[in-house]
């Protein structure tokens, strides 16, 4: 048997009901989908396509495999945005879907890519498709996860299937002990800077090495989250005990899953090895995630605003890191803190540092804390918390800095780790986190 990569093995197992023994890069295969996720921005269009093609009274292929998470435009007075959540709500009622996390209820979660694992919807060896490009985040759980559009998602809703082209896999190996001033965000920004924002187009990106397996699950999610910024189809990390402990603790419905990893001798089209101890804090300058610099190269650049949030940089690990810098200090620029999910918002109220909750650390530093959602990561309606409505310079833990991404099309967005963003918030200029952390 020809050895296969993790991504190839998952796609082979999902190709047709019986699966296939073997697939190779370039093969087009119809795969069975384990979980389909949609949200308030792409859900209404997806539902429209589903009804148009399968009929108004059609049923989804498997109600247990559909997950709907409103998260994008939630805390806004925008009538159209609110209307879109109503479209989701109505569809969920019509179809009697169990996995819906409605706004204004105790079930409300926030950012879908973090809500999915928290609620036990990410499992090794599975295929997860979502109507959001950052669906690739779930590759951290050893599954094939990628973003799709409304038409594809409408098709999956009715059939549970989709054709996909098997991608060749690139392998990125991180060795060594991560210094305290670096985070997964620095690693992935370094990778994107090296290969460019089209460097992994049509390809899978697999992460490996003791430097990756020393990361906690949230940091592994950050690595996989930004593969789309290099054009990657999916990012993936083979599961270890850390993965399984997380998944098992959350898999309350007891869904079975199969752990898959790359075969010895599997063929990778590209391989790059990093010694993490030798890396420096990395920043992506305006207006592209691959416009890489070392933070030290542009330190002192004046900023108007700092933003800590999103699927990329709004998890507990991200806030813990930011709090270590902000504790006992005062921010010099407007600083916005947006927990990705309600569970993380709760964590900010309960976890403590030097006798203060993280929420108290941020508030006493002068930061503003918003409600869990995607918020200003992608701009959104003009009343969105933290949105750049003016051509400001902002340093952010988010994932994209293309023109207009966070609002105003002349705004300048710098992407960096939570440590770098917090250090820069304290000084008001781009600041190397090594000034504050070990």
């Amino acid at each position: 048997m020809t050895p296969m990569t993790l991504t190839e093995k998952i796609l082979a197992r999902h190709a047709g009901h019986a699966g296939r023994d073997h697939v190779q890069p370039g093969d087009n295969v119809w795969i069975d989908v384990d979980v389909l996720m949609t949200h308030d921005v792409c859900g209404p269009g997806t539902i429209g396509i589903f009804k148009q093609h399968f009929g108004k009274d059609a049923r989804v292929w498997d109600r247990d495999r559909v997950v709907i998470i409103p998260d994008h435009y939630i805390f806004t007075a925008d009538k159209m945005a609110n209307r879109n959540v109503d479209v989701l709500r109505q569809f969920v009622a019509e179809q009697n879907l169990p996995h819906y996390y409605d706004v204004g209820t105790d079930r409300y979660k926030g950012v879908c890519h973090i809500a999915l694992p928290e609620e036990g919807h990410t499992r090794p060896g599975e295929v997860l498709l979502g109507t959001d490009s950052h669906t690739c985040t779930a590759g951290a759980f050893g599954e094939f996860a990628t973003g799709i559009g409304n038409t594809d998602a409408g098709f999956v809703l009715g059939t549970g299937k989709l054709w996909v082209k098997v991608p060749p896999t690139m392998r990125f190996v991180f060795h060594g002990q991560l210094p305290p001033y670096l985070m997964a965000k620095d690693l992935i920004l370094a990778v994107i800077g090296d290969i460019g924002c089209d460097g992994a187009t049509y390809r899978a990106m697999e992460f490996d090495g003791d430097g990756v397996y020393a990361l906690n699950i949230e940091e592994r999610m950050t690595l996989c989250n930004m593969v789309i910024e290099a054009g990657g189809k999916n990012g993936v990390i083979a599961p270890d005990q850390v993965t399984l402990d997380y998944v098992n603790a959350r898999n309350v419905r007891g869904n079975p899953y199969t752990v898959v990893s790359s075969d010895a001798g599997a063929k990778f089209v590209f391989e790059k090895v990093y010694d993490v101890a030798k890396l420096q804090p990395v920043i992506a300058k305006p207006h592209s995630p691959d416009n890489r610099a070392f933070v030290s190269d542009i330190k002192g650049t004046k900023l108007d605003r700092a933003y800590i949030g999103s699927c990329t940089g709004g998890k507990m690990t991200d806030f813990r890191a930011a709090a270590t810098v902000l504790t006992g200090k005062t921010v010099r620029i407007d600083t916005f803190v947006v927990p990705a999910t309600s569970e993380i918002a709760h964590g900010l109220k309960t976890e403590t540092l030097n006798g203060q909750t993280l929420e108290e650390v941020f508030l006493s530093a002068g930061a503003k804390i918003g409600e869990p959602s995607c918020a200003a990561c992608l701009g959104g309606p003009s009343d969105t918390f933290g949105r750049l409505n003016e051509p400001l310079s902002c340093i952010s833990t988010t994932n994209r800095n293309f023109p207009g991404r966070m609002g105003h099309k002349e705004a300048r967005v710098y992407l960096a780790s939570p440590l770098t963003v917090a250090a820069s918030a304290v000084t008001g200029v781009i600041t190397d986190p090594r000034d504050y952390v070990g």
Partner: protein
Amino acid sequence: MSLQSTITGKAYVLGDNVDTDQIIPAQYLTLNPAIPEEYRQFGKYALGSVPPSQAGLPKGHVPFHTDDEFVSPYRFIVAGKNFGCGSSREHAPIALDAAGIKVVIAEFYARIFYRNAVNGGYLIPFESTGRLCDTICTGDELRLDVAAGKLHNLTTGETYELKPLGEVAPILEAGGLFPYARKVGMLRS
């Protein structure tokens, strides 16, 4: 759409890495493309966040359409590398379709934009063999022989070979993923 046709119209030229936020700014994603009137409105906001200096190359500062128009005077977009990178929003090819764009010709595409364009049947995404965004100018009159993949610049008299559509041709010919799946028996009609 028929791949046997000839498409004629003006070119609008853009650079590299035109991402989905430039193609359709996120604030307009509140419109629901499943509602025909809202679908039409996407045309008005298409290419709304392209920086003015990059809008309508080589000179830039050429508006894609006037502010109150839904449909642009252009039928072709000619661009560089990695067209449509960023988000998975299908609103991006929808906005171009609603604005009257029939064909995009780029060096290559970001994967999800390409899939959405093909599977939704909104427009034909051709790949060029060279870097046409440096030779074709905004406003040039183009004629595309779709089946042959031959592009004629009627303004300059030049002719270019485009890359074959390859394995997506049957999906485009059928009109998108749903009609294609019916044709090949993946969906009952």
